[in-house]
């Protein structure tokens, strides 16, 4: 079979349409460049009637929203998950990295939590503070102007609190706390744990004439049909198209590798069209990888040639190394004071209205790096799982558990909304040996060699999650609640989530000034191939106790500006 070559010469080929790819598409297309966006999944617009899950009722799904098909349930807007038919990956014996992929236009930005935290000054210079890991070659002051622009372009609610490592920004006003969140504020403060309005990218206020304003259905994970929350398609790619950008969108197109010429420079990409299962080639002057940290590493490693025998940009052997995800710990509680609730609509935005950023000094603790606390609860819409073990809390009152008949109706109502939950999301220490590499023994259904992972948490992460549980228990106690489940033990690694499960994986193509120890420079440009850039979370040197999306967006914008400037100067 012959590889089919497209004759168009693109200025830029962008691989992936999530946060990084969407931002690059917008900036580069609006600068007048001819752009190809290559996405491995189908077209997706949450406003399209046949794709919309927002405002659907549980009974519209025959499985009532159960997660037998989509990992976060039938109504969640991620096409894919940790396991995708025909697209396997492997793990080295004894390790278990879980790789979440969302194959659709906009990628994981369609279902993400919208927690939009910019990094602080310390987050770029961790090695200087605790001697672990490495510093970024850039600092907060380099990224701040872009964070500011992202805030204004996309919209994020929050408050300026003057916190040293959780910087102020350009915020929309936050929504008022819900009832269980008031309990949380009170409980946390008793232990001197501060609570602030959360920082999330939903429009609580109009920012432009194109996007709608949040109507408080609490369903951001379904993606918003009026585009009132941030998704890459709705907020970056569609507007760029409307603004007249020259954008060719290739969907269901799985990129195999970056093609190169005799000089070793990139000439474009080759991809498999999932519809006819044939291989195609696109030509471009510049290739921007935004396929996600692990997918971009995979593409580089699979792009072997005479000039790049170890994979593209991989003479250093660093591609795939330093993979790291956020740490995660969770706990829930029964709060008797939240029983017997009167009904009112408290759906709010899709997620928490309040949160706790990291508040302690690690010098006084036996682990490095911090975590933030997320909180959930309330009278949510019933879905699969609702009513399971409906009166288990009876045991706390010495009443019989179980039963049947009409008393069940009263019991269900009595306990509805009385459970709250806490999630800790923390920073891990990047390890060179935590990595993804090509597994030469396996290919996916498109014939592309797959990734093999190796990942082990260190004591820092495990102890940090132990500390999360101590914090949660203290807060729950202060809230007058009962902790559910036993505290995980050190032997159970304190209940830390498997790496990859928090879906904040970063670091596989890290940035640095030294080509021997890093893959890209501070402009996210491959050290070895000047017309290849990476704008997903691969270039992160360290991950911070924040969610990565806002930083991906800011850095992608910064890199896109650099590309435009370099093209103008004819340097690329």
């Amino acid at each position, binding site marked *: 079979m012959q590889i089919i070559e497209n004759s168009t010469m693109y200025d830029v080929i962008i691989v992936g349409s999530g946060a990084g790819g969407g931002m690059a598409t917008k900036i580069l297309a609006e600068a007048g460049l001819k752009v190809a966006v290559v996405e491995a999944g189908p077209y997706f617009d949450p406003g399209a009637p*046949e794709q*919309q*899950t927002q*405002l659907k009722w*549980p*009974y*519209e*799904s*025959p*499985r*009532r929203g159960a997660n*037998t*098909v989509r990992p976060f349930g*039938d*109504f969640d807007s991620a*096409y894919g998950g940790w396991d995708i038919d025909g697209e396997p990956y492997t793990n080295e014996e004894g390790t278990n990295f879980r790789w979440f992929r969302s194959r659709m236009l906009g990628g994981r930005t369609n279902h993400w939590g919208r927690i939009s935290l910019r990094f602080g000054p310390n987050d770029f210079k961790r090695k200087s503070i605790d001697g672990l890991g490495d510093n970024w070659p850039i600092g907060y002051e380099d990224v701040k102007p872009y964070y*500011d622009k992202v805030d204004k372009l996309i919209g994020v609610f929050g408050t*300026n609190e003057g916190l040293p490592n959780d910087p*102020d*920004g350009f*915020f*929309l*006003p*936050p*929504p*008022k*706390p819900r*009832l269980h969140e*008031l*309990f949380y504020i009170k409980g946390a403060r008793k232990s001197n744990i501060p609570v602030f309005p959360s920082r999330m990218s939903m429009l609580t206020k*109009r*920012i432009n004439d194109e996007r709608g*304003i949040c*109507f*408080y*259905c609490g*369903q951001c994970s379904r993606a918003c049909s009026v585009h009132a929350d941030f998704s890459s398609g709705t907020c970056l790619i569609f507007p760029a198209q409307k603004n007249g950008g020259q954008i060719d969108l290739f969907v269901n197109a799985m990129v195999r590798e970056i093609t190169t010429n005799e000089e070793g420079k990139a000439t474009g990409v080759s991809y498999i069209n999932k519809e006819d299962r044939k291989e195609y080639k696109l030509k471009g002057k510049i290739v921007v990888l935004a396929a996600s940290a692990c997918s971009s590493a995979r593409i580089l490693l699979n792009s072997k040639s005479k000039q790049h025998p170890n994979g593209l940009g991989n003479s250093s052997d660093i591609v795939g190394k330093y993979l790291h995800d956020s740490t995660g710990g969770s706990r829930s509680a029964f709060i008797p004071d939240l029983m017997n*609730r009167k009904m*009112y*609509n*408290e*759906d709010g935005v899709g997620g928490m209205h309040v949160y706790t950023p990291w508040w302690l000094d690690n010098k006084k603790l036996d682990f490095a790096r911090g975590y933030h606390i997320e909180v959930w609860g309330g009278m949510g*819409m*019933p879905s*699969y799982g*609702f*009513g*399971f*073990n*409906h009166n*288990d809390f009876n045991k706390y009152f010495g009443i019989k*558990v*179980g039963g*049947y*008949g*009409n008393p*069940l*109706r009263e019991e*269900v*109502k009595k306990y509805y909304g009385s459970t709250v939950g806490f999630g800790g999301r923390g920073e891990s220490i990047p390890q060179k040996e935590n990595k993804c590499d090509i597994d030469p023994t396996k290919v996916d259904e498109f014939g592309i060699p797959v990734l093999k992972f190796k990942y082990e948490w260190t004591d820092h992460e495990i102890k940090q999650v132990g500390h999360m549980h101590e914090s949660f228990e203290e807060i729950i106690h202060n809230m007058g609640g009962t902790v559910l489940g036993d505290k995980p033990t050190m032997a159970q690694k304190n209940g830390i989530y498997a790496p990859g499960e928090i879906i904040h994986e970063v670091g596989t193509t890290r940035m640095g000034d030294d080509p021997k120890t890093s893959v890209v420079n501070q402009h996210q440009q491959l050290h070895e191939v000047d017309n290849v850039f990476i704008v997903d979370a691969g270039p992160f040197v360290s991950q911070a106790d924040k969610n990565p999306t806002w930083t991906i967006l800011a850095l992608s914008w910064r890199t896109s500006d650099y590309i435009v400037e370099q093209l103008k100067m004819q340097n690329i």
Partner: protein
Amino acid sequence: MDRRKSIKSIILGGVAGGLALNGCKPENVEPTGENIALAAENHFGRTPEEKELIEKLNAEQFLHPHELATLNVLVALILPANESYGSALDAGVPDFIEFMTKDYPKFQTPIRGGLMWLDHKSNTDFSVEFIAATPEQQKIVLDAIAYPDVEVPENERPLEVQFFSLIRNLTLTGYYTSKMGIKDLGYVGNSPNVWDGVPEDILKQHGMAYEEEWLAKCVDQSKRNTKAAWDEKGNLLT
């Protein structure tokens, strides 16, 4: 009887049975059976592959007529009708459970075996199948399995106790995710609105109050439509 016809009669049988047994008002009857098949057509954001899967599962029938008849009786005992709302059967719960046995095959053996156990127990003690037993006899059978010992971990409890818990869980989920159950619960969300905080009487009921300082930071909903603008320090001006 061909397979297709038998499925249809089972489904219709389920709905008719519910009406006859409980005399429930037609508007309280949940769309069931065939209408679930239509759900795929009704678009709840399925990809083509997901639609295909639903159609495939709907074309299969796992529970036999007698099992389905037993399940109909069982879910109506777990959640019978009251003055205001229909039973779990009226809410279409057996159709949901039938779907789940195919969507999540691990349910198949415990549910089939558990239904069998009900007949065995009823036959042994009363010489009659569970569905034909008197309400008193059914109560004796269920009372023995409906109240688990919470000191024993779930997966170490006797099979019949686990079976009952599973069916009760699926019954409550099926009911409270139905149109009828959502109304019964009183859930009033899933509709466009403007969140402006917890109502005052509810704050009082739970002994809570908003702090002035916190409220001052929050959105003024009367200005939500005014375009945002900031000064250079990030103070919102509008």
